């Protein structure tokens, strides 16, 4: 009987929870974190190829010289940027609990810092991509 009662709803998450901005910033933080660590796994391997000599390594880096990779590269930089800025925000709130009382200001500030720096980075890198084409 007990187990029948305790059945969890299958479609528990049918609708989105309209949470605090912090819910979304955390989600992005998590997603960018995972993206970056997955990239890192790959990056260690590709860099390690250098141990097999210039031919091997340059073959790898050659593969990177195409626009699609550059778009991914832009994504990576933005991810690191976002994760870092949001990570700093989290760390600040962790070490100064009183900031939690001003989360609006803190959250907005970090968002602005990200948007501005992301815009600059995107600008520069897009230009590079365009130049390359």
């Amino acid at each position, binding site marked *: 009987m007990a187990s029948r*009662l305790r*059945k969890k709803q299958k479609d*528990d*998450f049918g609708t989105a929870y*309209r949470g605090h901005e912090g*819910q979304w910033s955390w989600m992005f933080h998590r997603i960018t974190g995972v993206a970056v660590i997955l990239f890192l796994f790959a990056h260690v391997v590709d860099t390690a190829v250098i141990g097999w000599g210039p031919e091997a390594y340059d073959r790898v880096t050659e593969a990177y010289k195409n626009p699609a990779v550059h778009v991914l590269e832009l994504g990576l930089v933005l991810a690191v940027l976002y994760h870092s800025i949001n990570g700093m925000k989290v760390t600040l709130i962790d070490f100064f609990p*009183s900031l939690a009382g001003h989360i609006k200001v803190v959250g907005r500030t970090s968002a602005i810092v990200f948007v501005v720096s992301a815009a600059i980075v995107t600008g520069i890198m897009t230009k590079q991509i365009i130049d390359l084409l």
Partner: protein
Amino acid sequence: MATPADVLQDSDARRAGGAAGAVTLTLRIRRFNPEISQDSWWDEFTVEADPLDRLVEVLHQVKWYHDGTLSFRRSCAHGICGSDAMLINGRNALACKVLVDDVGPRVTIEPIRGLAVLKDLIVDMDPFLEGYRTVLPFLINDSGEPDKERLQSAEERARFDDTTKCILCAACTTSCPIFWGDEGYIGPAAIVNAHRFIFDSRDEGSRERLKILSEKTGVFRCRTTFNCTDACPRGIQVTKAIQEVKRSILFDRF
């Protein structure tokens, strides 16, 4: 300066404006009844309501005049007992603290998340209260009792005032993305109640509590998403309290 009579006219005028006529409200309610089906379904009800009606009374209208099987918990009807936390238009709130006016003509109501649904809007509160119990939510002071009161300055008292307001409604814990993923996480409500004692100058059990809270299910699972603070119907600065607890574990100071 305005005389009382002036102030009065103002407020009466405002109220008269606010209470203008009934509105039609469509409720979309997520239903579940294991006696009927193992799956949940949606029901829609249309009711007339005053803009200043509480949503819990609208639910009563449905239960009393449309479908008696609709089940939900409620008691005080003014936000003090913590019975009726539910997911209203995608946000946790007490149905008795949301007015028709606040939610517009269409309202979606679901049970709070992360706790097993037992019937309609009723969820199993036991895991939630179990979390509460693990943080030793009672004053611990074994160094003798005075004849009268223990002294405490107004500042010391103010230190934990915010977290004494908790009514254990679970709105915070069931809004926490971490709790949705893992109900082993002790959850913001338990931490709020731990905070209430950790920062009480009369308490001597804080070390014990902090040890419990620094375990894998404890306070370090919090990712500062602030959903809890947003959801708390008592306006408790939940995340701030959690951060203070983290800090006091870090520095072993309280």
